[in-house]
């Protein structure tokens, strides 16, 4: 219901943005009104929470911030691009962190340094978890502000572990142990039928799962500049072979592509004992699980690792200097420790700064729900999400080739070589930019 109302409001706000985007001279030096787009990707009452923040901010600062619900992450990007090209876009937006190179190439965003940072701003930016600055700080400049951030985690059913004779207090840390555990958790003949582990490989989630697995094999999928990918290096190939083996050798996961949207339901129903999912789902699983569960890092080869994801606040180039400054001030307010803690508790996203974890609110919540504190200990082992120029295209082609390998249509090596060749051809022109 809330979503529908927000959508219908969109048309109304578009009109008022038009007034704002009028020539700079008309605009007063002090900005009174800002508009931003945000996507919704987790099952929390986001519109309500964000509207609440905006009202509070208006009271404290006198600046009205209008939040427009914009669909999924790709929807939010398309809407922002279309609105900006049409001459009346929002001044800032929550977009995928991994879109950094893509929005740079489209010449849409302004680095925070160019807006102007004072000492307090710099100290604020240093307070974010280093893992959340991957794909955020590139080439010495900060391109966005970490906001709704997450990390890939393994959720496992402790009761199923105990029943299968596994240690429910220690999740396996290396690939082989994880595969063997998943095999023991699988039951395909009796009733109820269960799978040991499920990992999502559908479009938009497959590259993220692969990123978590490759992090555990100590390999990056791309360079920092976003101009080169490492899909076909031996360590990446070995990682995909392991993923295929979970079905082929360990018989612990269904063959073919598993959809992201089915994971949490399968886990809560007890249809699968382990899922590889986003920390953003912790709140939903905590609320819905009728059994004891815990979160762990995905096993590695031999050291566990994972990947970060989620969205950052990007400030747009087309906005006036004053609007950019006002947007930056709002972003800073939005990520202040108390708010970041509140946001984390109500949505399931990871609190983006160290200080947020130290607030009393967060400490009390973690004391009640220890699992909510886990992501903090995972962050040091996390790497950046696959992020290149034309990232949506590169991620999709990787996902399609991973699907070919998981369906048995191609060997992991052949699939990743094909993905590497296609990606290299696309990225060639960005190398000498």
């Amino acid at each position, binding site marked *: 219901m809330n979503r529908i109302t927000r959508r219908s409001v969109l048309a109304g706000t578009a009109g008022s943005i038009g007034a704002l985007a009028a020539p700079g001279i008309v605009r007063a030096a002090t900005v009174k009104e800002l508009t931003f787009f945000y996507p919704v990707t987790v099952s929390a009452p986001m519109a309500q929470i964000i509207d609440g923040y905006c009202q509070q901010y208006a009271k404290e600062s006198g600046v009205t911030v209008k939040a427009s619900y914009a669909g999924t992450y790709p929807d939010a990007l*398309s809407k922002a691009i279309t609105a900006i090209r049409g001459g009346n876009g929002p001044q800032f937006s929550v977009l995928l962190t991994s879109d950094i190179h893509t929005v740079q190439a489209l010449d849409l965003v302004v680095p925070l340094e160019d807006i102007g940072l004072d000492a307090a701003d710099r100290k604020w930016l240093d307070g974010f978890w280093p893992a959340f600055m991957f794909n955020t700080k590139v080439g010495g400049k900060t391109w966005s502000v970490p906001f709704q951030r997450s990390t890939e985690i393994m959720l496992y059913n402790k009761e199923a572990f105990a029943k299968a004779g596994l240690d429910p207090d220690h999740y396996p840390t290396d690939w082989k142990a994880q595969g063997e555990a998943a095999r023991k958790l699988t039951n395909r003949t009796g009733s109820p039928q269960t799978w040991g582990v499920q990992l999502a490989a559908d*479009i938009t989630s497959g590259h993220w799962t692969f990123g978590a697995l490759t992090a555990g094999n100590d390999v990056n999928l791309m360079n920092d500049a976003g101009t080169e990918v490492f899909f076909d290096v031996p360590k990446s190939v070995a990682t995909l072979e392991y993923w295929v083996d979970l079905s082929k050798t360990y018989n612990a996961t269904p063959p073919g592509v598993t*959809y992201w949207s089915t994971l949490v339901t399968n886990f809560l129903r007890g249809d699968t004992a382990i899922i590889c999912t986003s920390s953003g789902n912790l709140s939903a699983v905590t609320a819905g699980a009728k059994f004891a569960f815990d979160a762990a890092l995905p096993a590695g080869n031999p050291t566990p690792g994972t990947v970060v994801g989620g969205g950052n606040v990007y400030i747009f180039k087309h906005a006036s200097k004053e609007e950019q400054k006002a947007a930056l001030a709002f972003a800073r307010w939005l990520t202040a420790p108390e708010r970041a803690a509140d946001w984390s508790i109500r949505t399931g996203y990871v609190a983006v700064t160290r200080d947020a974890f130290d607030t009393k609110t967060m400490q009390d919540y973690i004391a009640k729900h220890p699992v909510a504190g886990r992501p903090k200990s995972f962050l040091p082992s996390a790497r950046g999400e696959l992020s290149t120029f*034309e990232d949506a295209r590169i991620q999709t082609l990787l996902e*399609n080739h991973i699907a070919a390998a998981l369906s048995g*249509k191609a060997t992991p090596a052949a699939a990743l070589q094909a993905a590497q060749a296609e990606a290299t051809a696309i990225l060639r022109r960005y190398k000498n930019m």
Partner: protein
Amino acid sequence: MERHPVAGWLFVLPATVFILSFTDLPLVATLASSLYTAPFAGHPGHYVGLDNYNGLIADPAFRQSLWNNVLYAAVTVPAAVVLAMAMALAVNAAIPGRAWLRLSFFLPTMLPMIAVGTIWLFFYTPQYGLVDRFTSLIGLGQINWLGDTSTALPAMMAIAIWKQAGFFMIFYLAALQNIPPPLREAAALEGVSRFYFFRRVTLPLLGPTTLFVMVTAAINAFSVVDHVVEMTQGGPDNASSLLLYYVYATGFRYWNTHAAAAATMVLVLILSLLAALMFGVFGRKVHYR
């Protein structure tokens, strides 16, 4: 009567303006756009001739989307036509609960395609999805319909057939009720079998309807992709990617608008050919009263 050439032009002006601005100009603009590159790294876009088209041919995802779409049309068009005709014949007869049957056949048509996608996403879910529950009842194992490269496209076809057959049934029902009763009475007098009557009288009289339905179904096969966006996003391994989905992804997810323009022109060409074939060749062979 006086002739007013200016008045005549003024009368057609509104229609002309609309056709020009909403059909012809966008087509020309798309064609032009498909011959240029996007501005890149400070350089403005420039004319590249057929480079964007060559790029499409070189893209395995485009070739697969095109081939998928041909298969998709080749299966969904005849299947929807046959099913629609069968349903119309069934509910045209005087049977109990006829209104209820008609309604249930027509129901899928009234749902928006996005809602259909969401419903079928649940139907196809492995383990607790409706289809899997049914197949496990009759002893077939689990089938990951949308997660296997060989079943994803057939799964999409089934949705398209289910969605549009009820709509086409309405047209067949109307046509069936327009068949003059004396024909049936005459046939009964002659002692003609029901099948013979259907083959020699009903089927030919349904000809114009069939042509219309086939054109509509073929156009739908190339222009309705909401369920692909909602359910598989073309995956796995491009198995369920259709041409219009390729255009959408290229244009609005990858922001490669000039390549998308070229793919759009290919789509327009296919649709024009279909229309020409249907109306030009088959149209003349259809019996009109």
